[in-house]
Structures are given as C-alpha cells and as structure tokens.
C-alpha cells in the first residue's frame, strides 16, 4: 500500500545501525545561527554521541542531526520533537544540523535510501528517533547514578538534567556527557506512553521560522564559497537535442562575462554575477540539432497512452469476479480520464554550486536525496564517493523535484571547465522547460450498479510512466510499483468485485519524476470522480453514497462525517455554486474534503472554501498538520484550475509564471482543517491535501453545473463548451 512496505525489505538497516553507530556529524550549516559554511565544532572526545542523531557536548550543547530535509513541511521541528520528547529536553535547548550523505546512518527505513519523499519522514522517524532519544536518556541517567553511587531507578531525567529525587542532587546533560559516553548502550529502551507526552501532540513553533523571516535562512541558491562565479545556461529546447553551433561574439563582450562553456546539449555562461550571465545568455546565438523528438506534441503522448489502455496490463488488485458482476449489473458506467504533465515550479529555481579540484569535488545544494547526489556525482567524475563532499541546505520547495540529481550533474559538468567554484542557477524559463514532469496518465474505467444503486463491479486500467522504475529500480517488479497504483487500489470502500490494471508506458521525449502527491495526485482524482459518477447514476447524495460503502473503514467514515458536518453539507447553496466531496486513504492517513466552488457565466471557476477533516494518527505537531493541509489545498487548486505542461514540436510551451500560472492571494480559498485526535502511529501528510482537493473541486463543479470534468486542468474547458 505504501512504497514503504516493499522497499524496506531491501534495506539492511538494523536497529544497531541506528543506535550504536557514532557519527562525528560534520558538515552542514547550523540553523538559526546562519553560518552557511560553519562546520560544527569538531566532535570532542568528551562529547556524548550515543547514535548518529544526537551529540551532547561537555559544554552542554545539544546538537541534533536531521536525517530528513526541511523543504517547508516542518520536518526540522517534528523530528526534534520526537527526539526531545524521549530525551526530556525542550525544543529551545537544541541546535540542528543537516545530515551529511551516509546511506548507512541516515537512510529512511521505509525507503531503504537516504531520501525525503513520499510523505514518509515522520513515518520513518517515528520509532527509531524516539528510541535514539530514549537511549541517550537512559545512558545519561546511568552515568548520574554511577557518579552518585545511587540506584538508577531513583533518578529521572527532566528538562536537560538528571535529578536524584531522594537527595535532590542534579547534574546537567553537558556535565554528564563524558561519563555517559562510557556507559554501555542499552539493548532495549522503553518509550514513553502517549499520555506522558509533553511535546508530541502539542502545537510547536517551527525551529526554522526566525531565520526565514529575517533573511538569514540559507538555501542552496545562497551558497557563496569564496571566489564563486555565477553561471546560467541554455539547454536543448527539445529533450534529446544537441548543440549544432554557437556564436558567442556578443556574449563575450558583455561586461562581467568570464567564460562560455559549451556542452554537448547545453551552453553555459559563467560570469561575475547573474545579471551578466543572463545578459550574456540573451546575446548567445545557438543553433540546435533537435534530434528525434523534434516533432513531438502532447496529443501524440495522450494517444499513445490511450491505446495502451486497450491492451492488458499488470494486475494491481483483483477482488471477486468483475466480468460476471458487470454482466449482471442493472446499470453500467464507462468513463475515460486524463491528467496532464505538470512542472514542480518550486519557488527556488534549480541551482547547484560546485568546486571541482581534480582529485576531489565539493558541492553545495538543497537536496531531498543528498546521498544520491554524492553517488551520482562521484560516478560522473570517476572519483571515489568520499572525495565528493556535499553540503546540504534548506530547500525552497521540493515537491519531489529535489529527489533528482540532474541539476547537480549538470553543475558538475560545467564546473569541470571552470577554475574555482561556480554556482549554476537556472532561469525560471529553464526551470520550467527542463523540469522532470509529473507523468501524463490516461485511465479507462467501468462500473456496474445493482437495481438498488449499490456498486457491484469496478474496473480500472490506466497507463503512464513509472517514476519508481527509473528512480529505484528494485521497487518496480511484475509490471507494478506502489507509487503508480497508490490511491487506485486498496480503496476504503466496500467494492465486492474490483479489478485494477496498470500499463507502464514511457513516452519519448519528456522525462518524468515524482511530484507532490505523485501516484495519488492522479489516482485520487480519477477514483473519487468516478465514485461521484456512480453516486449520480444511483441518484444518491455523494456523501450518503460514500458513507454506505464504508462499513469496513470506521476511520474513513469518521473523517467523512466530520468534513460533511463542518462544511454544512446538505445546506442550500446559491445559484452558480456547488459543493463537492472527496475521500482518500493514502500515505497512511485518512482525509475527507468538501470544496465550495462558483462557476461564473464565462466558465471561470473560483474555489471559495475547502473544509478538510484529517486523521493522521498521532499528529506530532498539529500546527504543521494544519499548515500542510492548507498548503496542499493551494497546490492542488493550482493544478486543478491551471496546471498543465504541453509539448509542441518537442518543446515545452510554458516558460514562466505568466504561462504556467499559480494560484495567488486573491484566488486562494479559505481553508478549514479539522484534526481527529488519535493515538495510532502517524501517517504521512505532506502531500495528502494536494491529491484530495482536485476531485473535491471537480465534483463541486459537477454539482454546480452538471458538467463532469474528466480531464485536468479545468482551464477554459467550461468556457469553450458554452457552460
């Protein structure tokens, strides 16, 4: 159901790796102090480093190494909460460091690699990082007991100190650090029970907030090693094309331009500053050989996928006998759905700084997969991995784009020709036209209802690119991967005869990648729209219809009821407006959403309000849960209303925020988030809001207009066909 499950089989991470390994966590910046290249002080011998995540100095400094990256989702607050909860400290007492690349120490146990994606940071950290904190606490308590010659059971840890109750003696963690480091690592530790939590479950202020409001937060694009030059580039406008000829006479004449680097499929201008680099780029005259994809258009891709859904695919899930059930159904429905390519358009454009020094290479980047960057750069340069030093940074929006190493490899290629460090910054146009895109998908569905309108059969066959097959090949087997199918199978509904197939098709001429909510961004739109179609065919209320199918899923029913109640479901809406509902169980969390939309005379859609009920299990930081749903709703609303990357003559037609539009303040709906209290282990949430708002909007448009939207984005669809 989650990517996690199959992949963890391949991971050899053991509890011992997590708990015993003692890393001198070097490298990386120190948050809050904004020392971009300040290496943490060398780990002294008196430091207490019970594992790869915690270092307590004898000076009392507590440094936590963050195995997962911060790209806005609040990891750098929630992870410290997990550790500090068990370590008995307040968040104000810790400092944070980015983890260096090290698959052994910092791989996500759910993924088997050191990467932050698939909404799995908290799910992966939940147990191991609380254990890391508890281990440290146990050893500190043991050290104090030994020093005082008292029973451990009479000592307890509290607020950065160990206290001996009967005598009132106390010692700070820093004071105990040297002795604690000599204590044996406990074989097992007991974790606090939820009713004793003081941090987990209580809204906490983000630890990265201050640096982000006063301009001191350091992102990859802000790296400035001494003597750094700035480069920008033009890459072949058609994927797979080559540089034929370059006339750089005018470019070299631009003040501040230092060097032109010509690569096989790109040209870079190296300059004193980005202004000169951009001016130099505009003055370049490049002739391209467009190569085999010169004539490619989106329509061609769509037809290729459509045809693929006529063939059989790999069976992702089969329950009962769909064919027989369909034959006996009283009502039958058929539909085709399509979703477009999408760009990430993180607000921080693609960038990477590289200093290549023949025998070694230093890289400054904001990456969701820093070990991947290191490994691929080492391979490209023919260097041993330990000769590639990677400094990770805050990320100005990841959304899956920073799981890829292409930007680092491009910068490495350029840096090989440059003397000294060079920061390669992509223009927004390059960023959008040379993204790796959320795949285009095409779905063919059918369903059958019995005489009472109950669903008796569901069949879905869809075709599109498998990102996993390229990114993590062992995760793709038997024609399937867990991302492509998430949200299309294991639906919360009772569907007695259910059959889903996936046909992997890799369209030529356009690279694909993970995108906020990946598989579910496609599947939840399709399944929740189609369920809505079934409710309409059964002449039932969309909430009541869904509710009647949730006998086996009380958590899904609870969020559906809560969202409906809070949204005032069933109350009348003004003319031209409509209310739509959607429900999902993906990334281990249950969400229900109700969207209120208005469709104007000219077919423009305005989303006024989104009401979301969330059951994420334990909400480690409830404030972040709310923020992530708010953000996900905006991200998904952008996709539903505007999001579309199209190809013409092999070229991406969108270039900047004028042609690839984003929702802005004046279009943002009000968003209400209701979090269900739960002690279940946490589910993932960074992406869940994005996938769910899209069908909620589409279903609301149906309620308002009677028009079923089976192709995203809405764009001008309602205007064209004369709503």
């Amino acid at each position: 159901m989650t990517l996690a499950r199959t992949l963890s089989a391949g991971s050899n991470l053991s509890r011992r790796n997590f708990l015993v390994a003692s890393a001198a966590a070097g490298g990386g910046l120190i948050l809050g102090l904004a020392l971009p290249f300040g290496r943490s002080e060398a780990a002294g011998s008196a430091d207490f480093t019970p594992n790869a995540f915690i270092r307590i100095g004898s000076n009392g400094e507590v440094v936590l190494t963050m195995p997962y990256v911060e790209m806005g989702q609040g990891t750098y607050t929630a992870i410290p909460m997990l550790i500090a909860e068990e370590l008995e400290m307040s968040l104000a007492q810790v400092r944070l460091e980015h983890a260096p690349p090290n698959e052994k120490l910092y791989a996500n146990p759910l993924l088997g690699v050191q990467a932050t994606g698939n909404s799995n940071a908290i799910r992966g950290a939940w147990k191991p990082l609380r254990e890391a904190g508890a281990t440290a606490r146990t050893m500190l308590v043991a050290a104090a007991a030994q020093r005082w010659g008292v029973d451990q059971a009479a000592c307890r840890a509290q607020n950065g100190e160990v206290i001996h109750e009967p005598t009132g003696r106390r010692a700070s963690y820093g004071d105990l650090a040297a002795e604690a480091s000599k204590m044996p690592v406990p074989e097992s530790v007991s974790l606090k029970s939820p009713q004793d939590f003081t941090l987990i479950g209580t809204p906490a202020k983000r630890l990265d907030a201050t640096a982000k409001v006063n301009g001191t937060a350091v992102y990859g694009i802000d790296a400035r090693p001494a003597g750094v030059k700035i480069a920008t580039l033009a890459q072949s406008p058609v994927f797979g094309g080559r540089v034929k000829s370059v006339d750089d006479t005018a470019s070299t004449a631009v003040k501040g331009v230092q060097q032109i680097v010509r690569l096989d499929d790109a040209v870079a201008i190296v300059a004193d500053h980005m202004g000169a680099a951009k001016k130099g780029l505009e003055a370049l005259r490049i002739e391209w050989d467009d190569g085999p994809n010169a004539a490619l258009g989106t329509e061609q891709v769509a037809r290729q996928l459509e045809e693929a859904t006529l063939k059989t695919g790999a069976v992702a899930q089969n329950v009962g006998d769909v064919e027989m059930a369909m034959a006996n159904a009283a009502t039958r429905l058929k539909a085709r759905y399509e979703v477009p390519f999408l760009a990430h358009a993180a607000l921080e454009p693609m960038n990477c700084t590289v200093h290549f020094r023949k025998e070694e290479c230093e890289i400054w980047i904001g990456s969701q997969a820093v070990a991947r960057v290191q490994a691929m750069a080492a391979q490209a340069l023919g260097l041993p991995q330990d000769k590639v030093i990677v400094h990770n940074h805050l990320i100005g929006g990841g959304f899956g784009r920073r799981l890829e190493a292409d930007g680092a490899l491009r910068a490495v290629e350029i840096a090989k020709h440059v003397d000294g460090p060079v920061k390669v910054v992509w223009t927004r146009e390059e960023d959008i036209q040379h993204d790796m895109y959320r795949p285009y998908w095409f779905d063919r569905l059918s369903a059958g209802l019995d005489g009472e309108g109950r669903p008796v059969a569901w069949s879905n066959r869809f075709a599109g690119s498998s990102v996993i097959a390229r990114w993590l090949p062992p995760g793709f087997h038997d024609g399937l991967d867990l991302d492509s199918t998430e949200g299309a199978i294991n639906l919360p509904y009772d569907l007695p005869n259910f059959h889903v197939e996936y046909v992997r098709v890799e369209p030529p001429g356009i690279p694909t990648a993970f995108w906020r909510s990946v598989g579910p961004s496609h599947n939840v739109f399709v399944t929740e729209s189609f369920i809505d179609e079934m409710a309409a065919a059964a002449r039932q209320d969309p909430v009541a219809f869904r509710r009647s199918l949730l006998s086996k899923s009380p958590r899904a029913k609870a969020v559906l009821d809560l969202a409906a109640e809070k949204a005032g479901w069933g109350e009348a809406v003004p003319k031209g407006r409509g209310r739509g509902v959607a429900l999902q169980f993906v990334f281990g969390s249950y969400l229900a959403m109700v969207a209120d939309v208005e469709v104007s005379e000219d077919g423009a859609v305005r989303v006024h309000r989104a009401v979301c009920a969330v059951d994420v299990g334990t909400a480690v930081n409830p404030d972040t849960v709310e923020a992530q749903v708010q953000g996900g709703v905006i991200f998904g609303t952008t996709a539903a209303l505007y999001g579309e990357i199209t190809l013409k003559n092999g070229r991406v037609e969108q270039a900047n925020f004028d042609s690839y539009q984003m929702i802005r303040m004046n279009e943002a709906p009000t968003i209400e988030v209701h979090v269900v209290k739960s002690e279940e282990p946490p589910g993932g949430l960074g992406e869940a809001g994005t996938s769910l708002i899209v069908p909620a909007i589409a279903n609301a448009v149906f309620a308002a207009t009677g028009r079923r939207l089976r192709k995203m984005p809405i764009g001008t669809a309602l205007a064209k066909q004369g709503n």
Partner: protein
Amino acid sequence: MAFNIEINGKPHTVDVDADTPLLWVLRDVIGMTGTKFGCGMALCGACTVHIDGVATRSCITSVHSIGESKVTTIEAIGATPAGAAIQKAWLDHQVVQCGYCQSGQIMSAAALLQSNPDPTDADIDNAMSGNICRCGTYVRIREAIKLAAQAGKQGG
C-alpha cells in the same frame, strides 16, 4: 560603470553595467542573499525590496534607476515599525513553510501596513497578489497581516 547606492542606510559602490538589475547587485555583488530570485520578470515577488518605502521588484529595477533613493531589504526591515510588526505576526502565526517566498511576502506586507495601517481583505488581495507562495501559505499570510494591523491599533 560605478554606481553609488544606499542600502539599509549604508553606502555601497558597485561596478556593473547600468542595466544590471538591483537583485543581482544585492545577491551576487554585495552578497546580501536574503532577497530572493524567483522569476526575473516581476511575476512572483520573491525579489521585493523597498525603494523609498515603496515595494519594488528588484529583478526588473536597474541599478542606474536608483540614484539617490534609499533601498531597504529584508535584512533591515525589522528596524521599521511596520516591518517589525509584520515579522512578529509572521512568527506568532507560524506563516512560513519552505520560507523561500517569505522575504518578498514580508516586504510587500510591510509596505502595505506602512501606507495602510488597517487593510481590508481587498487591500490585502491588491497588495499581496504579486507574491506567489508555491507552498500555499496564503491563508496564514492574510491572517498574519490582520494580526499585525490589530496589534498596531492596540499599540496606539
């Protein structure tokens, strides 16, 4: 060509082409990286600074156009009453996510509050719609601006 410009109250001399956007002078020449690059075409607001108190997109503002005007950036906006109020509201209301757009958001919001201590929703839409937040913090930005305005009223 050399230009003398005043940034956050300090004089700077930079030697660049006259049409060089202020954004790159700040980030690459002087090394003040709090002001961000997002689009280069006045479409996203990440690069917003104040020029004589007016919110301005530095990515399309040439260095020669600045003349004697005073440039204020995110690094110094906390020294103005409106800037300090906005930063405080941003922290109290936990606005930021990735944070990359927030320098620009805060500069736009501070300019709004400076000229209009009690903005309506429509005023906020007007002043803030040039600033994209890809992470989707709009709901909290709106609330934080109102919070800052409220605090201003109570403070006198």
